[in-house]
């Protein structure tokens, strides 16, 4: 296991369904994400991007192969171990999934409060700081229902980042946003990730995002078919 890598997968296979309906979704996935990098995961619909994300994000049990996340093997880990690992991850979903009855600040606070024993005023301050980082200082006490789509997604970014996660997993976070808001959200992820040394794994179809990535993985039919590493301005193509 390489210490520079936050997550490494070796020979990862995954199946959905049982019996006759059992169908393999991932085939022999090997990947490694360096700490602090921004990786984009691309591929056609149904190629297995979300499945990879849920496996690395401890949201699904690893069936076959090995995934080492922050030094811990996920294959065979218990539900409680997976839950505890998720405390150190940040998630951004395609839809913001904010809690409508909570304010922007309270939604972000939920991102830290999961670590029990965190003091209320500390939580509050951390959340306010996270909101100011995403440029929403003036919307702190708005109920999420009263925010625009882009603002909501920025609150979701703040919520994912507020706990200083080791890795952020985002699945098409810009799909519901217009061009400007999308660029804004991705820039935020890139800038904050760089500042804090956070690793980011981003699933997207959005071509505008590609030039901001450190590396691009391409999935097809459950297999990684391309892995490009950016060196300076141009991307270096290496086939797996």
């Amino acid at each position, binding site marked *: 296991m390489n210490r520079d890598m936050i997550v490494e997968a070796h020979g990862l296979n995954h199946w959905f369904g049982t019996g006759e309906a059992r169908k393999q979704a991932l085939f022999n996935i090997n990947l490694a994400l360096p700490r602090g990098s921004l990786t984009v995961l691309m591929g056609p619909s149904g190629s297995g991007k979300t499945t990879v994300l849920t496996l690395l994000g401890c949201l699904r049990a690893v069936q076959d192969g090995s995934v080492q996340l922050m030094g811990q093997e996920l294959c065979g880990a218990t539900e409680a171990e997976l839950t505890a690992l998720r405390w150190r991850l940040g998630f951004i979903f*395609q839809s913001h999934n904010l809690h409508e009855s909570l304010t922007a600040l309270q939604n972000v606070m*939920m991102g830290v409060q999961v670590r029990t024993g965190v003091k209320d005023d500390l939580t509050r301050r951390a959340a306010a700081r996270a909101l100011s980082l995403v440029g929403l200082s003036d919307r702190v006490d708005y109920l999420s229902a009263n925010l625009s789509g882009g603002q909501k997604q920025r609150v979701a970014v703040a919520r994912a980042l507020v706990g200083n996660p080791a890795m952020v997993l985002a*699945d098409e976070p810009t799909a519901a946003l217009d061009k400007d808001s999308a660029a804004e959200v991705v820039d935020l992820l890139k800038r904050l990730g760089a500042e804090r040394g956070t690793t980011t794994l981003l699933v997207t179809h959005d071509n505008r995002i590609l030039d901001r990535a450190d590396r691009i993985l391409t999935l097809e039919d459950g297999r990684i078919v391309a892995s490009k590493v950016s060196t300076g301005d141009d991307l270096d193509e290496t086939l797996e």
Partner: protein
Amino acid sequence: MSRLLQWVFGRLPIGWLQLTHKRGGFIAALSGVAFANVLVFVQLGIMNSMATATLRPYDFFLADIMISAADANALAEGGNVARQWMLQSFADSDVIAGMGLFVGNAPWDRGDKDITFTTFGVDPGQPGFLAPDIAGDAVLLQVQDVAILDRLARGLSREDAAAIRPQTPLSFETQGRTLTALDTFAGGGGFGGDGYMLVSDQTFLSLFASRTSGAPDHILLRLRSGADVAVVTERLRGLISDDKIRIRSFAEAAQEDLRYQQTQRPTGVIFGFGVLIGVLVGLVIVYQVLSADVADHLREYATFKAMGYGPWFFLSIVVEEALVLGILGFLPGLAVGTGILTLMGKVTTLPLAMTPGMAVIVFAGTVIFSVLSGVIATRRLAAADPADLF
């Protein structure tokens, strides 16, 4: 409230925020819980007052053992008993006194509205069988056709009742005879009659022509002080082996009467069911509200799950909501329940009232059942799979 809950649960009061976010639904839910509370309060109040009313006449007498007909489930029910059993029981050296007690219903015809008195015929020569506050009047009863009236009787105005004194007696017609009320005592209307009346056994027999002095409704016995009532009762059962009569301690007779009213009589059973239905209504309302709330927030809950919140967190949200509904629904329920019981007590002159005991029981029940429904409602949370969010 928000601060209190935050302090209790050590986190943002999400349950509270979630409930109060939809104000209309919240108020409807609280009204539902309050309604269930009122239902239970009214039924409990009636049951309580039935117990009070059932036990009340037993307070008029002082006795250790009562001999009744086998079918006499209540004071005013069942056949009569032969006076000879009283004489037989004197064979036991612990029995020091006995009195035949007659019971009948005598309507006082007042033209517009009768007052039905549950009438007790007692031996005025044995004041020791009467409660201390009545015993003093025994001497008045020695005169034929004299009655002591229940001043709390339904239909008798408090002023009229207060005016009844030996110096200013009240004469009235009942069972075709004229009785003279010389004094009053505190009885209280029950579910059977409107109130109570005490007369001498001689007066009783002249009111009820079909009754005879050899067959009272019950025989009351008093024992030597220090005698063990249970032991003597057992001895008397051996002495008097007649399966058409039952020999019980007086206290036991009162309790059996109460049990009979609550479990055998339709009224008692109906009110018992009323309590059950109130509890069920409350359970269903809270369950509906909470499980709908869980279903409405599955995505949010799944998001929390993804963020690493465990099952206890979700349980505590739903318990928080259940507590809010239970406690805030209880308060208006208590207020309305008290109002309704007071009003019903005024109208019916039954001893209907909110008691602290009832309030405590209903509060505890509301909280427990709310939390219970909340816990059942969290089963729906299993459907919140964070892997489905992406």
